């Protein structure tokens, strides 16, 4: 009796309730979507920081207010730096599609220079504020300001490190499939940071001056 059951089980087609074979995935085919989901999670981080700034942005603790601290022409220059770096990265992607390695490297370098100018201007602005005593410890407004704007600046800085790394990669291995994929991800990252900056200059700097 026992043996008969075993035999029956062996000979019968074992039912499968799940996908046995991994169907074909081209290497890196899911990277763009995965990276996009990472960007969305990053977006949530910034949303929370914006919410914090929205709640605490008016608490000056009798300290300096946005009107005493912000220099709108400088912010306008900074904004144009980031916007220009966005379009030059776009040009890098266009030359990448045509496979022109030299032009791609030049556009990446130009983008990195604009990004560096952005970080430099922002750091000098921070240094100026801290020199005037407007440190993150001064008031809740300044704590949330430095956290929000600093986090964005940190993202741009890491983007620059990434960009230099990719320029070295492209110089060493050329425009291979993997490098194209990486440059595409950095492109999304870079444009995404520009989108976040729209929120920063509108809600922090411009609205700050209106408070």
């Amino acid at each position, binding site marked *: 009796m026992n043996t008969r059951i075993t035999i029956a089980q062996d000979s019968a087609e074992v039912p499968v309730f799940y996908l046995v074979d991994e169907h074909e995935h081209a290497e890196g085919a899911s990277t763009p979507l995965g990276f996009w989901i990472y960007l969305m999670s990053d977006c949530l981080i910034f949303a929370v920081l914006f*919410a*914090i700034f929205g*709640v605490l942005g008016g608490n000056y603790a009798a300290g300096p207010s946005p009107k005493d601290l912000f220099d709108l*022409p400088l912010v*306008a220059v900074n904004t*144009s730096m980031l916007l220009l770096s*966005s379009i030059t990265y776009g040009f890098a992607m*266009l030359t990448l599609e045509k496979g022109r390695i030299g032009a791609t490297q030049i556009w990446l370098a130009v983008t990195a220079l604009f990004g560096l100018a952005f970080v430099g201007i922002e750091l000098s602005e921070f240094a100026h504020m801290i020199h005037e005593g407007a440190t993150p410890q001064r008031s809740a407004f300044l704590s949330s300001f430095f956290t929000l704007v600093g986090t964005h600046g940190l993202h741009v800085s890491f983007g620059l490190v990434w960009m230099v790394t990719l320029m070295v990669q492209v110089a060493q291995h050329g425009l291979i499939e993997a490098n194209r994929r990486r440059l595409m991800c950095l492109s999304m990252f870079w444009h995404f940071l520009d989108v976040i900056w*729209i929120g920063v*200059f509108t809600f922090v700097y411009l609205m700050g001056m209106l408070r």
Partner: protein
Amino acid sequence: MSADTHVVHADHAAGHGHDSLRSYLIGFGLSVVLTAIPFWLVMSGVLDSRKATALTIMVFAAAQIVVHMIFFLHMSARSENGWTMMALIFTLVIVGITLSGSLWVMYHLNVNMMPGHAMSQMP
């Protein structure tokens, strides 16, 4: 007729490239305008009402974010079979709940915790 087909063919051969250059340039132009106007509004103080200025620059910011999404990030309902759009919509819902919820709750907390209010209740 032959010129027409030639143009179509050239466009197809150049493929994505031509379209993209135009899309980047349009996006850049729109962004410059959408950035310059809010800065001008605030720096010159053209609008008398602060509330009106604030609302206007918020509308400009929203418009510019959409411009960046379409022309720089190349968002469309079709990319990745619509999954990027789904992820974006989901994120926007969460962001909306987080922002409006925080601001709403904390505003009312602030109003009810005002020192003046507390003092008036004191004997």
